[in-house]
């Protein structure tokens, strides 16, 4: 589904990522882990088109999408969430999800300002669809709340709902459990599995080892900008290099 090949990223003299390659298998949940500063978020930013890598390629379903802008990747079925949740704070929860449906609509300035009949119909379909995703994540009751006023945990769910609204092929989640309490983390784990069951490939960067070992089918370990190991959760747990990276000099 997603193939990262030889990604290298330098910022000035600092090498954040060095020749990182791995695959995210279709329909699986792939976890990317590593100590702080391993380059996980940088990797996500490259894959989702926010940074331009110094070298290497990214393929989505066999198509070379390196250097594609995020908005173009969105239309190709790749979407992400953010570590510090990037909601549209002054818009309602429902409107946030409707922005996720942006690519599903085609009404432009003219049709929208004139309220042409098909635009009104499209708008109605979008609302219905948005409610579907609110139900999917269990936040329907918050539809009219301003997103900026949501508690953090609900914000995560909204961000997930908004991303799902794109009906992506692959969703990249940057530390989805960060800032969640244990009950919320459990709910999140169930939600991620539900996403996978609906046929969507998931890749996530995560610190919560329990969550990662619990739900991931495959794990990629990064350390100091390089890939350290790759394998099933069991293999990773038994990998001595990984253990020393986490326990040792870090």
């Amino acid at each position: 589904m997603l193939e990262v090949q030889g990604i290298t990223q330098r910022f000035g003299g600092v090498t954040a990522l060095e020749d990182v390659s791995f695959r995210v298998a279709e329909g699986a949940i792939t976890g990317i882990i590593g100590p702080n500063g391993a380059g996980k978020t940088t990797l996500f930013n490259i894959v989702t088109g926010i940074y331009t890598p110094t070298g290497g390629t990214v393929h989505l379903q066999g198509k070379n999408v390196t250097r594609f802008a995020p908005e173009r990747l969105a239309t190709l079925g790749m979407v992400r969430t953010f570590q510090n949740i990037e909601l549209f704070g002054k818009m309602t929860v429902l409107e946030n999800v409707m922005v996720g449906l942006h690519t599903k609509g085609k009404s432009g300035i003219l049709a929208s300002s004139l309220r042409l009949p098909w635009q009104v119909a499209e708008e109605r379909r979008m609302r219905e669809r948005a409610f579907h995703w609110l139900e999917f994540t269990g936040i329907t009751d918050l539809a009219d709340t301003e997103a900026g006023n949501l508690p953090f945990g609900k914000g995560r769910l909204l961000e997930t709902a908004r991303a799902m609204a794109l009906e992506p092929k692959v969703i990249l989640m940057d530390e989805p459990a960060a800032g969640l309490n244990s009950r919320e983390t459990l709910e999140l784990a169930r939600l991620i599995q539900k996403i996978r069951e609906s046929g969507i490939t998931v890749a996530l960067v995560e610190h919560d080892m329990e969550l990662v070992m619990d739900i991931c089918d495959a794990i990629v370990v990064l350390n100091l900008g390089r890939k350290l190991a790759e394998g099933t959760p069991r293999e990773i747990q038994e990998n001595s290099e990984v253990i020393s990276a986490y326990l040792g000099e870090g």
Partner: protein
Amino acid sequence: MMDKRSLLKHEAVKFIPFALLILALPMAFREGYLLNVFVFVGIHTLLAVALNLLLGYAGQISLGQAAFFGLGAYGSGILTATHGLNPWLAMVLVAAAVGVLAFLIGFPILKLKGHYLAMATLGFGIIVYIVFNEAVDVTGGPSGLSGIPNLAVGGITFDSDFKNYYLIWGITLLTILLSLNLVNSRIGRGLRAIHDSEVAARVMGVNVRLLKVQIFALSAVISSVAGSLYAYTMTFVSPTSFGFNFSVELVTMVIIGGLGSIYGSFLGAALLTLLPEFLRAFQDYDIVVYGFLLIFMTMYMPGGLVRGIPALVGRIAERIGIRKKVDA
């Protein structure tokens, strides 16, 4: 929860009384001086709504709006007074040309953000202003351009404040209605998304660059139409109306009324147009007042009057409520 129909009603509940009020206003003072002032409130509302779409919704600042206003005014003035074109046709042609111009300069300029965007649009505005002053052969230079005809349709010539009031407010009300539709649509959500988090908007597939440029061009087109209407109403234009100060005045209107509120733009435009008429002294102090208002509103009432006043009333009511509880 509000379904589509009730949302529509919700908008109508505000718009219909507003429109009726505006349309009934001339009955209160038929041919008075105030009617003339309200003609300008209409033109300024048009300009403020146009800027608000860009500044309040998409979060992109423009300090060059007076240039689009001026291009509309001079374009229409030159095409009609000098070249004898039909005023309606001139208005449409100029608006289209200004739209294309804004679209073309929008692509490079809107790549800039924040302070730099402000400076670039300001620079554009000043260049246009200098051209108005210096291209004497075409614009008449500092002494202005006169002999611009009034608009006319059928047998009616829009040559009085009363007629102009209905002409301009007709167009302004229509623009307000269309803008309300726009901001509550897919496009409007895209704009507000850019404002709140540009990176998230892009990840959601919003073509941020194109949308910014489109709204910039739309804003320029509306401003150009306002300029044409201004020229046909005044039958005379001169550069001083289109300088940097006027761009700042427009920003002030939008900020005072409320960023991201269409009705707020009307409120801001009305206040800043009426105030100088009621307070004779204001004319001497105007820039002091603008400066103070810009700072004060941004610091203490960033939502503008449309949100600030209800919030203030709410807070006072709450306080009274609390006191009642204490009493009881």
